[in-house]
C-alpha cells in the first residue's frame, strides 16, 4: 500500500502521541497525594486545549465565511468542529473517570464541568445542523453564526474556575503548582496533542473538500451560492 502525505502526517502525529504516553507513564513522577490516577491530568488538560484550538478554527472559518463567502473557510470550520467535539469528549470522559477516583462521583454540576458539557452540546449541535441542512450558502451562514456565538462558551469554560467557586481545581499550571518533571511532561503532551489535532483538522478539511466537489458533480444547482450571477451567454 502506497502512503500519501496524509498517511505520513498521521504516522508522525501517532509517533508523537506515543512519545507523550511514554513520558506520562515512565518519566513523570507519581503524585504523592492522588497516586497514579493523577496521570489522567496530562491528556485530560491537553485535550481541552486542543479542543479550544479546534473551536478557534470554527470561529475563524465562520468569520471569514461571513465576510468573504469563502467556502474553503466553511470547510475549515466543519473540520474544526468535528475534531473539537472529539477532543471535548476525551476531556469529559477522562475527567469523569478521574473525578470518580478523587471525588467519589463521576459528575458534579459545577461551573467548569457544566460549561464544558454545554460546549460539547453546542458543537455537536453545529455538526447536526451541518449534517442535515441542505448544503449551500444558507447552511454555511447558519453554521458560521452557531460557530461564532458558540465560541463565547470557550472563555466561559476556561475562566469558570476563577469566576465561580468550583469543585474542579483551578489553574495549577499558570500558578506554578507543578514540579518541573510534571510541568515538562504536561507541556510536551500538550504540544503533541495539538500537533495530532492539527493533523486531524487538515485530514478532515481534505475530506470536506472532496465531499463538496462530489456534491457539485452530483447536484450542481444546490451548492451554487444564491448570489452568484448567471453566466453571460
Amino acid at each position, binding site marked *: 500500500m502506497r502512503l*500519501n502525505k*496524509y*498517511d505520513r502526517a*498521521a504516522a508522525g*502525529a*501517532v509517533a508523537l*502521541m506515543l512519545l507523550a*504516553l511514554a513520558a506520562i507513564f515512565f518519566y513523570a513522577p507519581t503524585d504523592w497525594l492522588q*497516586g*497514579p*490516577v493523577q*496521570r*489522567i491530568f496530562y*491528556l*485530560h488538560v491537553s*485535550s481541552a486545549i486542543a479542543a479550544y484550538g479546534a473551536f478557534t478554527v470554527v470561529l475563524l472559518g465562520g468569520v471569514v465565511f461571513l465576510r468573504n463567502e469563502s467556502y474553503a473557510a466553511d470547510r475549515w470550520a466543519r473540520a474544526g468542529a468535528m475534531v473539537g467535539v*472529539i477532543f471535548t*469528549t*476525551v476531556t469529559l*470522559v*477522562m475527567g469523569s*473517570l*478521574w473525578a*470518580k*477516583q478523587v471525588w467519589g462521583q463521576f459528575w458534579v454540576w459545577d461551573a467548569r464541568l457544566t460549561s464544558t458539557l454545554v460546549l460539547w452540546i453546542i458543537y455537536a449541535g453545529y455538526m447536526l445542523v451541518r449534517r442535515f441542512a441542505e448544503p449551500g450558502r444558507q447552511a454555511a451562514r447558519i453554521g458560521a453564526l452557531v460557530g461564532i456565538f458558540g465560541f463565547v462558551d470557550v472563555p466561559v469554560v476556561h475562566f469558570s474556575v476563577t469566576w465561580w467557586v468550583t469543585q474542579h481545581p483551578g489553574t495549577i499550571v499558570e500558578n506554578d503548582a507543578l514540579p518541573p518533571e510534571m510541568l515538562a511532561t504536561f507541556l510536551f503532551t500538550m504540544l503533541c496533542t495539538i500537533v*495530532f489535532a492539527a493533523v*486531524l483538522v487538515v*485530514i*478532515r478539511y*481534505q*475530506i470536506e473538500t*472532496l*465531499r463538496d466537489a*462530489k456534491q457539485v458533480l452530483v447536484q450542481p444547482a444546490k451548492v451554487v451560492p444564491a448570489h452568484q450571477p448567471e453566466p453571460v451567454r
Partner: protein
Amino acid sequence: MTYLVIAYAFALVLLGGFLIWSLRTLRGLDRR
C-alpha cells in the same frame, strides 16, 4: 489504577479510531 487504565484506553480507542476512520474515508473519496 483501574480508572487510569480505562481513561487512557478510551482516549486511545476514540482518537485512534477517529484517525483511522478519517484516513479510510479520505482514501475512499480519493479513489472515486
